[in-house]
């Protein structure tokens, strides 16, 4: 079983990296409203109940993978 986790800065936090990339896209002629850059983390788990896997991934995110002061996350599981 695999978990695909996306970590992004909270909406309220300025993302200078995203802002720089947005400028780049605009210079290339694309009409872009905004760009946010985050991190993608893949965690391979043993096979287990979906509920259990969700609980574990949330725990991992809150303990280490994200900093709740500045970041937020979403994830999906693939059996």
């Amino acid at each position: 079983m695999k978990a695909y986790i996306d970590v992004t800065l909270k909406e309220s936090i300025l993302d200078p990296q995203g802002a720089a990339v947005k400028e780049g896209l605009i210079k290339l002629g694309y009409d872009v409203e905004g760009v946010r850059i985050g991190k993608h983390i893949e965690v391979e788990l043993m096979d287990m109940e979906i509920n259990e896997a969700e609980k574990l991934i949330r725990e991992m995110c809150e303990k280490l993978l994200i900093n709740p002061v500045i970041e937020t996350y979403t994830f999906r599981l693939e059996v």
Partner: protein
Amino acid sequence: MKAGVVVFPGSNCDKDVFETLKGLDVDVKYIWHDEENLDVDLLVLPGGFSYGDYLRCGAIARFARILDGIYEFSQKDKLLVGICNGFQILTELKLLPGALLRNKNLKFICEDCTLIVENNNTPFTKLYEKGEAVNFPIAHGEGNYFIDEEGLKKLKENNQIVFKYRNNPNGSVEDIAGIINKNGNVLGLMPHPERASSKLLGCDDGTRFFKGAIEYFKDW
């Protein structure tokens, strides 16, 4: 009084801090991150790139064995200071509030910086005047201090803002360069006082930072 400088894989300012303290006649030792013994009075988490700064700055270091006892250490009448990467570790550990973000201009900045001493009522800053301008260099890519409004209000109420930048180089909230915890014994700052600890280095404004901490223990 004994001092310890924690050495993580990737620390690169450990020797600077060690030499600064040794030059002030302090009984100082290096403490490898895998040790458990925290038998010191002043503990320094130095600058650098602990564990390569993978995931986030300071995120992995908080799981080093030496840090197991650090919460307990911080609750005692002892001093803990995190400089640069050490500051990042202290916020990851939640011993200090807030977080350090990527510099606003996205650049790694390495330059001399003028700081204003906002609070000289701490062991580290008691030898400075309130409002005094001092020069400590900075060298960081992620020194942009962030704290939410509620947290900022608390920092102000408790007089926890210790240093501010005169010309904010990285986008930090309210020009904050260094803060202290509520108890007044855990301090974190992005600039490097140890790199301003000798006229040979161009400036010795940082010496009083360490002298203040040493004097704190003088009567022990």
